[in-house]
């Protein structure tokens, strides 16, 4: 279980908590909880989303305990400009990834969780809903607002960098 899902569980926790040490603790906690709750797992359902739900809950609980803060969702922005490819593409790409990660870390934990599961772990809407334990419609709303908020953050960062 750890061999197969360890990386994904750790990365879910990392993106939600935005802290490598906390992510390690949350991922470990998720595996321990999953191990203890194996008898509750329905083999008819996919194992991944069940485990991701435990990892997401562990990470969100961590955030609630230690880093409780709320961020208001802002209005829809223009999409950030695409950086042109060039000879320094790798460096630019690294920088872009760092900007994306930093912008994501500014989002509320629930939005980070939804974006992580949907776009980084490639889960379907239904799987995200199962993992977060919320209705499908709420997932779509969360994701829509999360994307909007992420674009605002990214636009602000790009604007701040070019200024």
């Amino acid at each position, binding site marked *: 279980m*750890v*061999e197969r899902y*360890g*990386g*994904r569980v*750790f*990365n879910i926790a*990392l993106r939600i908590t935005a802290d*490598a040490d906390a992510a*390690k603790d949350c*991922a*470990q*906690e998720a*595996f*321990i909880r999953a*191990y*203890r709750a194996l008898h509750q797992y329905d083999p008819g359902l996919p194992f991944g989303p069940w485990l991701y739900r435990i990892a997401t809950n562990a990470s969100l609980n961590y955030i609630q305990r230690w880093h409780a803060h709320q961020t208001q969702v802002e209005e829809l922005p223009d*999409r950030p400009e695409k950086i042109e490819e060039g000879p320094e593409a790798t460096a630019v*790409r690294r920088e*872009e*990834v760092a900007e*994306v*990660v930093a912008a*994501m870390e500014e989002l509320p934990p629930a939005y980070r969780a939804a*974006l*992580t599961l*949907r*776009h*980084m772990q*490639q*889960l*379907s*809407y239904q799987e995200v809903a199962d993992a977060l334990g919320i209705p499908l419609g709420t997932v779509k709303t969360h*994701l829509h607002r999360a*994307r909007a908020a*992420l*674009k605002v953050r*990214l636009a602000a960062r790009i604007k701040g960098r070019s200024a």
Partner: protein
Amino acid sequence: MSRFAPEDLEPAERRTHELLASVPPRALPLGFRDAVMRQVAGRRPTAWEWVVAAALALPSLGFLAHQLTTHGDEFSAALNNVTAAASADTAEAFFFIDGATVLALVLVGVASLIAAHAAIAAPSRGAAR
């Protein structure tokens, strides 16, 4: 676009998906798997330790209490002898203690060790949750 994408990805999501899917996953920290396995292996219930400690200690303590009530004067005399011998130059101290009392004391000691282990182990297991 990433090779992997949710089946139900909508056009409005594509740009965000491209951005987020391009974030490379972080490798698992070294020793992660071992740490999980240690916690799983170490998560034994401590209840049995308390039960064994109680099973050893309670009858022994009951017996010692009974001995103290019925032969309390002998105990105090023996203690006085030992105290007197310790404070004097002489190395002679007379006291009588029966085998059952010694056994009860040993059992109380063993029970204390088991209880101490359970008490020390419980918080570390709890912290791992």
